[in-house]
């Protein structure tokens, strides 16, 4: 059971993602963030519910929809925002950008712009735990679309036969870019695919942070105790375009407004807020204050990012190799 501190922290991280992403939308519109950015708004409960079941020293990998995971794992919003602006104070010194956040100091092994590609990496981190004799687990986030990639299959099979401590966490927001998972995934639920690897598969309400937390807690317990991987599917929805600004290109609507409206009715932040109030964990006023705090934190992050310097031209040559070689 989660105590008040944890439940409040859950709220804080969801708020952080929401406000971070809203700031990002704004910065993209103003042209301050260039390149691609994929909004996590609507899906906050998935990453936060999952990551609150982890320790700081557990490992995580993610994908292109990449801001929610690290923030959920406890990542720093200032260095994340600076990264999105391509600044040298960014967590990857401006070299990664939106799709490639990482923070190895707290187990964030990185987001991947190539879909499915970070799943094997998480399996490898879990293998590391086994070989090092520690009990760290690894979680990898990927979408419904990516679950059709070969890497998904190979990785789960490998983790299953080796009973590695890894949680395969599918964020099923029901669409890839424009294609619906009902048409693209040949099973009703992605969690059903667990049976192909003799591991547990759990379908979870991805709008409910507590449900996500509960499912992932069980998966983590199983993993830590050497019983192997679990496939968890969080059923969720993204509120915005696949990537920010794509709406300008893809005018045909592939999702209908009703569907979006229905999902908005089950907003993950609202659900958690209601829960906290109902269970007398926090008052509306306290939660408003929390939100105000988070907003200020994000504003400060934006200021920090804006005021940070760009990398120096010479830095383009740095970071290729740990034991450097001449580069041209």
């Amino acid at each position, binding site marked *: 059971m989660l105590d008040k501190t944890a439940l409040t922290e859950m709220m804080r991280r969801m708020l952080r993602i929401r406000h971070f992403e809203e700031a990002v939308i704004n910065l993209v519109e103003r042209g301050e963030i260039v390149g691609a950015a994929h909004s996590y708004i609507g899906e906050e409960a998935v990453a936060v519910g999952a990551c609150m079941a982890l320790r700081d020293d557990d490992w995580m990998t993610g994908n292109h929809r990449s801001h929610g995971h690290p923030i959920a794992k406890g990542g720093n919003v200032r260095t994340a925002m600076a990264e999105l602006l391509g600044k040298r104070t960014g967590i990857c010194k*401006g070299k990664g*950008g939106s*799709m490639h956040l990482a923070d190895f100091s707290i187990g964030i092994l990185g987001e991947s712009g190539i*879909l499915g590609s970070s799943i094997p990496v998480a399996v490898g981190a879990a293998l590391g735990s086994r070989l090092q004799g520690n009990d760290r687990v690894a979680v990898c986030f990927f979408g419904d679309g990516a679950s059709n990639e070969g890497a998904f299959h190979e990785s789960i099979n490998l983790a299953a036969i080796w009973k590695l401590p890894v949680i395969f966490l599918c964020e099923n927001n029901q669409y890839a*870019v*424009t294609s619906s998972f009902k048409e693209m995934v040949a099973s009703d639920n992605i969690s059903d695919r667990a049976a192909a690897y003799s591991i547990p598969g759990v379908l979870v309400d991805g709008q409910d942070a507590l449900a996500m937390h509960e499912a992932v807690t069980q998966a983590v317990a199983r993993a830590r105790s050497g019983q192997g991987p679990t496939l968890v599917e969080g059923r969720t929805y993204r509120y915005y375009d696949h990537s920010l600004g794509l709406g300008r290109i893809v005018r045909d609507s592939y999702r209908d407004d009703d569907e979006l409206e229905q999902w908005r009715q089950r907003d993950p932040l609202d659900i958690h807020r209601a829960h906290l109030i109902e269970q007398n964990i926090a008052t509306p006023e306290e939660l408003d204050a929390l939100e105000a705090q988070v907003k200020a934190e994000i504003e400060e992050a934006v200021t920090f990012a804006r005021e940070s310097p760009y990398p120096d031209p010479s830095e*383009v040559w740095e970071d*290729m190799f740990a034991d450097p070689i001449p580069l041209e």
Partner: protein
Amino acid sequence: MVTQTQTRNITYTQAINEAMREEMRLDERVFIMGEDIQKGVYGASGGLFAEFGGERVRDCPLSENAFFGAAVGAAAVGMRPIVESLSSFMWVGMDQLVSQAAKMRYMFGGQVNLPIVYRAAMYYGGSMAAHHSDRSHPLFMNIPGFKIVFASNAYDGKGLLKSAIRTNDPVIFWEDRTILGARAEVPEDDYSIPLGVADVKRQGSDATIVAIGGMVPRALTAADALAAEGISAEVIDPRTLVPLDKAAILKSVAKTGRLVVVDMAHKTCSAASEIAAIVAMEGFWDLQAPIQRLGTINVHIPFSPALEPLCYPTNESIAEAVRTTMS
């Protein structure tokens, strides 16, 4: 007799779209596969779903191995698939490209023809960072079995894509995103450009610049700047890297005695290396100065807009390389 050809001023993306549309109308074996092509997310397939429907404009799940390979199987039984993807997603489906598409015909003693066009969008220069900015054409040049096309403008793009669709072999057709919005005059009438014929984009006498795709406009800009300094640079666009119009390059070098090769790929083992090697072997006695090879520096593409532009050849670095060969 004078024939008047009507032209329109259209973008590269529109040119690609027209080439596919026209070929699909002409030949019902031609069909398209890719991710999100029905909605035309990447532009070039816009409107095709409306005209041809979902059987011939097929949205694929994220599974590049499966659909790159399905193109091979479909071609093997008589279809003519066009596959839409991005350079950076080709890694995921690499095995089907190399082990099946490129090798099958030879390995089976010529029993099968594989008329497939893999259209590979190449993003770079747009802050897409390392996972979306691959410029991997030189790798495929090292693998026999592909014809490799790299058009530098809308006119060439349409004409070359038509030839690519009509040839009976696997083709990789690179679409350079830095120039996809650029416009050119493109005829109303059907035309095609043969594979393997370079185009002299600008005549010159002092030095030869060989450039591909998005490097061509940069080379032309450089040539303009050099002209103002009294240096006359010839700009050659090979248009296809396999087959490569060696003769055109060697002929130009024979005239100018100086060669600058420009590629957006990483320098090492690039198309520029290849062209430099050919001329160092076959055009050696014509050379009056060291060959200058320009390419992307050997780092991955950094996200930061403060860093990324430092990686690629620029108008200025091209001009400077020509000046070096002249000094």
